[in-house]
C-alpha cells in the first residue's frame, strides 16, 4: 500500500511545481515588446468609455469586451457583426460600444489594441477594428512583433501614417487600454467576447450570432414576434 500513496504524493508534488512555474512565467518573453506592458492609468484614461457606433438615441446599447487576437472575437467580427451593423446599428435600433479587453494569453493583443486606439485618434477606429479582425489570421500567427503589419493596415484605411507612428511610439493609449481591461474585470469579464446589453451580461454561448442580437433588440424594444 505504501508505494501507492508515495506515488500519489509524487504526482501531486510534480503537478504543483509545474503549475507554480507556469504561473511565474505567465508574462513570458512574448510580452517583451514595450507596447505589451500595461500602461499607467490616469483619470482621463478611466473616463474614456470606448468607441461607439450607432445612434445616441438607440434604445439598446451593447457593450462588447473584445481582444483583437482572440479567434472567437475575430469570427464574430467578420461573420456576425456586419449583419448586426446593417440590420440593427444602421437602422438606429442598436448602439454598439467597443471596449478593449486584452486577455494576456495572446502575445500581440495589447499592441493590436494600441493600433486600434491610434487609428481612433484620427477618427478611424472602426475601420481599423475591421482591418485588424479581417487580417487577424495573418498577423496573429506572427512570431515577431507585428507593428509593421499594423502600420500597413493603418495606411490601407487612410490614416496619416506619421501621426499614427508617433502615437504608437508614445504608447499614449496604453493606460486607456489598461483602464478598459480593469473596468471589464471589475464587471466580471473573464473571456472574450463578452457582451452586455443595457447593462445586463449576455450569455455568450447564445449570443454568438446576429439573429440572437436581433431577437434581443426586438424583445427589449417590445417587438417580440411569436
Amino acid at each position, binding site marked *: 500500500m505504501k508505494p501507492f500513496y508515495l506515488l500519489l504524493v509524487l504526482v*501531486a508534488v510534480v*503537478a504543483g511545481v509545474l503549475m507554480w512555474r507556469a*504561473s511565474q512565467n505567465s*508574462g*513570458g518573453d*512574448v510580452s517583451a515588446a514595450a507596447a505589451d506592458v500595461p500602461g499607467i492609468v490616469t483619470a482621463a484614461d478611466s473616463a474614456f468609455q470606448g468607441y461607439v457606433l450607432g445612434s445616441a438615441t438607440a434604445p439598446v446599447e451593447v457593450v462588447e469586451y473584445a481582444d483583437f487576437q482572440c*479567434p472567437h472575437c475575430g469570427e464574430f467580427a467578420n461573420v456576425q457583426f456586419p449583419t448586426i451593423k446593417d440590420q440593427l446599428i444602421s437602422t438606429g435600433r442598436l448602439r454598439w460600444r467597443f471596449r478593449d479587453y486584452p486577455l494576456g494569453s495572446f502575445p500581440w493583443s495589447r499592441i493590436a489594441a494600441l493600433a486600434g486606439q491610434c487609428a481612433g485618434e484620427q477618427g478611424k477606429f472602426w475601420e481599423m477594428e475591421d482591418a485588424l479582425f479581417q487580417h487577424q489570421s495573418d498577423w496573429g500567427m506572427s512570431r515577431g512583433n507585428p507593428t509593421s503589419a499594423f502600420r500597413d493596415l493603418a495606411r490601407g484605411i487612410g490614416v496619416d501614417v506619421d501621426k499614427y507612428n508617433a502615437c504608437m511610439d508614445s504608447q499614449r493609449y496604453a493606460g486607456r487600454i489598461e483602464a478598459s481591461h480593469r473596468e471589464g474585470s471589475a464587471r466580471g469579464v473573464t*473571456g472574450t467576447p463578452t457582451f452586455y446589453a443595457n447593462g445586463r451580461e449576455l450569455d455568450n*454561448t447564445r449570443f454568438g450570432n446576429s439573429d440572437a442580437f436581433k431577437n434581443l433588440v426586438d424583445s427589449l424594444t417590445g417587438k417580440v414576434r411569436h
Partner: protein
Amino acid sequence: MRRRQVIALLALVGFCIALYLWFYKIGVIGKLQCGSGSCEYVQTSRYGALFGVPVALYGVAGYAVIFAVAMVGLQPSQLARRWPTTALALLSAGGFLFTLYLTGIELFVLHAICRWCVGSAVVMSAIAAVAVEGAVRRR
C-alpha cells in the same frame, strides 16, 4: 484493489490537468503551455464554459469526486464492498460521455485541438475502461 488504485492515480492526474486549465481560465496562469496555440482558441471559445461555468471546473469537480470515491473504496472496511465499483463505473461513464461531447466540439465545431483537453480525454477514457471492466467482472 489494484483497479481502484489505478483509478485514483489516473483521477489525480486528470484533476491536475483540469486544475491547470481552470487556473488559466480564471487568470492565475497567463499563458497555456500548449505549443500550437489551439489550447487558447479552445479555452477562450464560447464552448469553454457551460451554463456560465468554465468547462475546466466541471473537470476539476468530476476528477475530485472520482478520486474521493476510489480512495474511500481503498479503505480496508470498504475493500470488499461493491458500491465503490458501481459508483466509479457510473461516474466515469458520465465523464467519458462528457469527454466525447467536448472532443466532438473540438473536432467538428472549432476545428482545433487543445493538447491538454486531449490529455484529459485520454485519462478519462482510461478511467472509464478500468472502472467499467471492473464493474462487469464483479457481476
